[in-house]
């Protein structure tokens, strides 16, 4: 491949570095009104009434709307493709503003004002009367007998969904496996461990806050410009929320400053539209604060994993069981999909000799809503599998690396439930590569029997991750290509650039397939649902794979259409062409082609003899090969030179484009548009190795060396891929050591919904992040590629955890492993 695989500069690099790239807030019109949301200050209850008297007196206040004024429409918010099957539809469990308060911070009213200060003042002056119920912040409380149902109409028991999955037959049970193991290996040779592992509620911490502005035009069209990953889904959900037909909603998505899954949900866009409708369609801007973003949008699920493992004395993995309880918070958002995903990977990642059993439950609680976040339940799953794996090794004495090489999912794996295959299997190669690079064996030996208060340890973790959501959900993507007069083109993707580099890799793909050069492809970065073809958006590590297939398919069609026109130009004695400024060029091209291919006068030129390379119509290499064979069967030396680009070049694409636009004989605007319904999937995989130092009296962990090795197929742009991995590793580092949104269990009030107290790692906390790839050409990927967007955020945390275990012998079961938790654990272990 010529363009795919190259480390080309991002197409948006200059705009973003100079600050000229325009984001939602940069585009708002003058004279816009500003809105602000009033959030509940109780965690569970009902709004009885408002007193707006003082708030309405604030100069500059235009309108105040409350939960008593909004349409009586319940709508879903998940960034899933809508399902036309009732059973698979997302849960419609909220209104634009809610009377029934379900968490501390629920949206109950909003103010529209001439400026932000007036809006903020009015919000502070609104008085609310509530009927209060006891907050049920934890899963335990939400499941307790007599707990108030948060959604009386939908779930009386607060359980969103629970599911049961097995490996080793539908009727597999861990209990039966134990009996079987005892019989097979003898009671004295098998062991069971039982551990409970916990993961934190995490905030995405994208730089750009969720911001939008909306207006209604003279024809009643409601336009919302917003920072989202999923414009087409926002369109549909907003229509549902407002009770209007989808065609009335138009979503414009410019550049966005990160999303990480938080913007894979419909957030405040419906409210923003509603507010504009309430003020006669005037433009209204709604930007929420960082504090609101952390507690009132979405979080990563805190999941408790009660795990059991059955294994032999010599470290053979026989069976595992997981009972996972996901705290979903106040609203369903993505519902059970995330916890189910967590359970699926738990069972897939290891080849338990007898089988594996998984029970997952997703529970409503009166706490911030959990939704999609980068890697969608798998960081939690891998925290469970990888803690468990090392805890088994700790008892059996088996080397954790060897254990994984022996027990991890095997080449040729196919998930029995989803039928997703592991088409190109790089997992073991990744493990071997990481092992070598970190000097695993030397370090495991060197770190034995350490004394003293500062100790070193090395640990690892593995993972697998599917590519997109087929067949669990719909995978569809569209692409349009439009030729310009100069032979350049517009590339219009329904898929969204959210900072990950999508625009750049699609441009590379389009260049690869069409033969138009990278810098002559103008990717339209903004999605406007009125004109942009349909794509569900950026999530599930899907776009490079699923939307990439659409890009490739569209590129092939576009190329065919150009070549068809080229054939027409070369074949036909166009009266028109002979009069054009291109007459000589085309004539010469025709003669050159006939000569090179040794075509007789009466033999027609056909499209199959043509190709596009470097923005030129050229003689197809294959056709040349045939021609060469015909002419000279003995001499093949110097073939490449003789039939290099210059030898095969016919005329520039601009000649064709200009003709096709303005020909008086055959005017044709060459475009192509395709939808690709993707019905394939494949597993990506990888691992992390971490070498750490623990200062036990201070509970301080310093990562000395960390490396992620990824099996993500062929890389479209290795430099961007590396950057993608860096970002993910940083997120997993935070998951492992410092990030956790804390909620007061008594009141449901968040403690640390700000960036001082919510600890994302700073540059000073981040070690040199090393990245390696095992590149295997996946047959299902459009260019041999498979998932990479999310996987980097998965394995670092458990690798560090296992390194701490290696250093100190102390197994930390709860993430993040804060200094305070570590100090307590070291004291309990009498190490300090």
């Amino acid at each position, binding site marked *: 491949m010529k363009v795919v695989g190259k480390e080309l500069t991002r197409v948006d690099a200059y705009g973003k570095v100079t600050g000229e790239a325009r984001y939602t807030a940069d585009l708002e019109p003058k004279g816009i009104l500003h809105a602000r949301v009033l959030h509940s200050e109780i965690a569970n209850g009902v709004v009885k009434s408002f007193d707006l008297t003082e708030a309405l007196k604030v100069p500059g206040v235009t309108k105040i709307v409350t939960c008593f004024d909004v349409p009586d429409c319940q709508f879903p918010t998940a960034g899933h493709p809508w399902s036309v099957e009732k059973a698979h539809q997302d849960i419609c469990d909220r209104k634009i503003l809610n009377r029934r308060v379900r968490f501390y911070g629920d949206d109950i009213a909003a103010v529209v004002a001439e400026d*932000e200060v007036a809006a903020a003042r009015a919000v502070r002056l609104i008085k609310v009367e509530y009927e209060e119920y006891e907050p049920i912040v934890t899963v335990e409380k939400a499941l307790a007998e007599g707990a108030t149902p948060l959604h009386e109409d939908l779930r009386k028991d607060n359980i969103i969904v629970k599911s049961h999955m097995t490996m080793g037959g539908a009727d597999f049970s861990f209990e039966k496996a134990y009996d079987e193991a005892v019989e097979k290996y003898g009671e004295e040779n098998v062991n069971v461990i039982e551990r409970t592992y916990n993961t934190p509620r995490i905030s995405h911490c994208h730089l750009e806050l969720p911001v939008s502005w909306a207006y209604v035009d003279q024809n009643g069209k409601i336009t919302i410009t917003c920072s989202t990953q999923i414009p087409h889904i926002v369109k549909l959900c907003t229509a549902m929320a407002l009770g209007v037909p989808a065609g009335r909603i138009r979503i414009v998505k410019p550049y966005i400053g990160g999303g990480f899954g938080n913007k894979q949900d419909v957030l405040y866009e419906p409210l923003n539209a509603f507010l504009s409708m309430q003020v006669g369609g005037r433009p209204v801007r709604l930007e929420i604060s960082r504090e609101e973003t952390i507690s009132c949008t979405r979080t990563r699920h805190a999941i408790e994993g009660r795990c059991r493992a059955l294994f032999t004395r010599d470290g053979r993995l026989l069976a595992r069981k997981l009972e996972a309880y996901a705290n979903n918070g106040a609203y369903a958002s993505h519902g059970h999909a995330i916890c189910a995903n967590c359970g699926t990977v738990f069972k897939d990642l290891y080849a338990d000799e007898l089988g594996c059993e998984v029970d997952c439950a997703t529970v409503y609680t009166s706490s911030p809503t959990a939704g999609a976040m980068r890697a969608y339940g798998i960081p939690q799953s891998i925290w469970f599998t990888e803690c468990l794996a090392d805890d088994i090794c700790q008892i059996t004495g088996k080397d954790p690396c060897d254990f994984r090489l022996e027990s991890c999912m095997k080449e040729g794996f196919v998930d029995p439930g989803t039928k997703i295959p592991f088409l190109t299997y790089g997992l073991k190669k990744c493990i071997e590569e990481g092992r070598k690079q970190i000097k695993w064996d030397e370090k495991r030996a060197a770190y034995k029997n350490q*004394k003293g208060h500062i100790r070193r340890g090395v640990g690892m973790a593995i993972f697998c991750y599917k590519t997109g959501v087929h067949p669990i959900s719909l995978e569809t993507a569209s692409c349009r290509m439009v030729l310009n007069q100069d032979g350049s083109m517009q590339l219009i993707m329904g898929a969204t650039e959210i900072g990950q580099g999508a625009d750049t890799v699609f441009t590379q793909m389009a260049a690869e397939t069409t033969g138009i050069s990278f810098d002559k492809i103008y990717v339209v970065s903004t999605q406007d649902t009125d004109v942009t073809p349909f794509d569900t958006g950026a999530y599930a590590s899907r776009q490079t794979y699923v939307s990439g297939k659409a890009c490739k398919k569209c590129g092939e069609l576009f190329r065919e259409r150009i070549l068809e026109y080229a054939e027409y130009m070369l074949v036909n004695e166009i009266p028109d062409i002979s009069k054009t400024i291109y007459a000589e060029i085309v004539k010469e091209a025709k003669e050159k082609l006939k000569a090179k291919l040794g075509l007789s006068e009466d033999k027609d030129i056909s499209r199959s003899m043509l190709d596009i390379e470097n923005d030129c119509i050229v003689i197809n290499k294959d056709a040349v090969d045939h021609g060469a064979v015909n002419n000279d069967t003995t001499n093949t030396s110097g073939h490449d030179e003789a039939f290099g680009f210059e030898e095969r070049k016919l005329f520039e694409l601009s000649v064709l484009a200009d003709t096709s636009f303005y020909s008086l004989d055959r005017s044709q605007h060459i475009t192509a548009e395709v939808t690709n319904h993707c019905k394939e999937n494949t597993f990506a995989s990888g691992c992390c190795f971490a070498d750490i130092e623990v200062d036990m009296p201070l509970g301080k962990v310093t990562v000395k060396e960390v490396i992620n090795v990824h099996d993500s197929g062929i890389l479209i742009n290795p430099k961007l891929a590396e950057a993608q991995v860096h970002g993910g590793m940083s997120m997993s580092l935070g998951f492992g050591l*410092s990030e956790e949104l804390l909620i007061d269990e008594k009141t449901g009030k968040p403690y640390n919904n700000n960036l001082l107290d919510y600890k994302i790692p700073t540059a000073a906390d981040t070690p040199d992040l090393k990245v390696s790839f095992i590149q295997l050409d996946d047959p299902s990927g459009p260019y041999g590629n498979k998932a990479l967007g999310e996987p980097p955020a998965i394995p670092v945390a458990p690798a560090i955890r296992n390194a701490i275990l290696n250093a100190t012998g102390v197994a930390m079961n709860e993430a993040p492993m804060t200094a305070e938790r570590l100090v307590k654990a070291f004291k309990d272990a009498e190490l*300090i």
Partner: protein
Amino acid sequence: MFDIRSFYEAKSVEDAVRALSEDENALLISGGTDVLIRLREGKDAGASLVSIHNISELKEIREDENGTLIIGAGASFSDITNNPIVKKNINVLGEAADTVGGPQIRNMGTIGGNICNGATSADTASTLWSFNATVVLCGKDGAREIPVTEFYVGPGRTVRKHDEVCTAFKIEKKEYEGFYGHYIKYGKRSAMEIATLGCVVRVKLSADKKKIEDIRLAFGVAGPTPVRCRKAEEAVKGMDISDASIYEKLSETALTEVNPRSSWRASKEFRLQLISELSKRALREAILKSGVLESEVAEIRYKNESDNESKANAELFSRDVYAAEGVYFNDGSAAFPGGENNA
């Protein structure tokens, strides 16, 4: 956009005092790194601000004829860190100032604001306590000087009156001459932090550099206000720096003088551990900075010498969990009361 009623740029300290005394709701602003945050949160919304940001005399750092150092309250953290007089005489204050927030905050935030905020976590506060610094306040009736150790009334509260402007901090020569100090800020991460605990130790060694002639130990976040541990200081005075018991003496005595609280940010137990550990480490670093060789200073002793295998060995291969508890599996209904099974 901040919710401010008015903004007055004071021309001088006297002018600022006048403006404050004329409006009992007026707030003083200098670097703005605390005031603007409060305004953004809606606290103090609608306030009138009186700015002393551009009063150049407040930014001065100088040494008078007696060797007393005078640090203008309007000096920013980065001014202090980079100032030659500070570097030469009281470098530890510059080091402490350099741990505040991030570079932008250190360029804007001032030492006056850091102290007048009344926060126990202020990074320069514990160090100023260790220097017995004096706070200079200017009001309607002229200037008054208060020892920094008497400046704090409680968390977030000081003796500064509404219409007083803090103009400077004074440190006498006897408080710094011959001393070397070390400040450790313990935060949950390496930058952009609020101290979970701050610890400063300053030592003056005997002429032969063998004994601790004088010592100061102070903490931030070890109580509602900064705290100086005088008993702990007395306990190690005169001790030999090669005597490893100096560390336990200092830290164990300090633990009797502090009063940290449990909050969601950190438990009391964890803060006590930090107080104990950081006082030892800061002492050793302060001694090393006094120009003695590492070999002449005692190592900190750690009680436990068990290695990382011992824990693993304790958990021998056994069937204990399963055997002890028998069949402990929850059936589906117990694990998921009342729910449907959507397999």
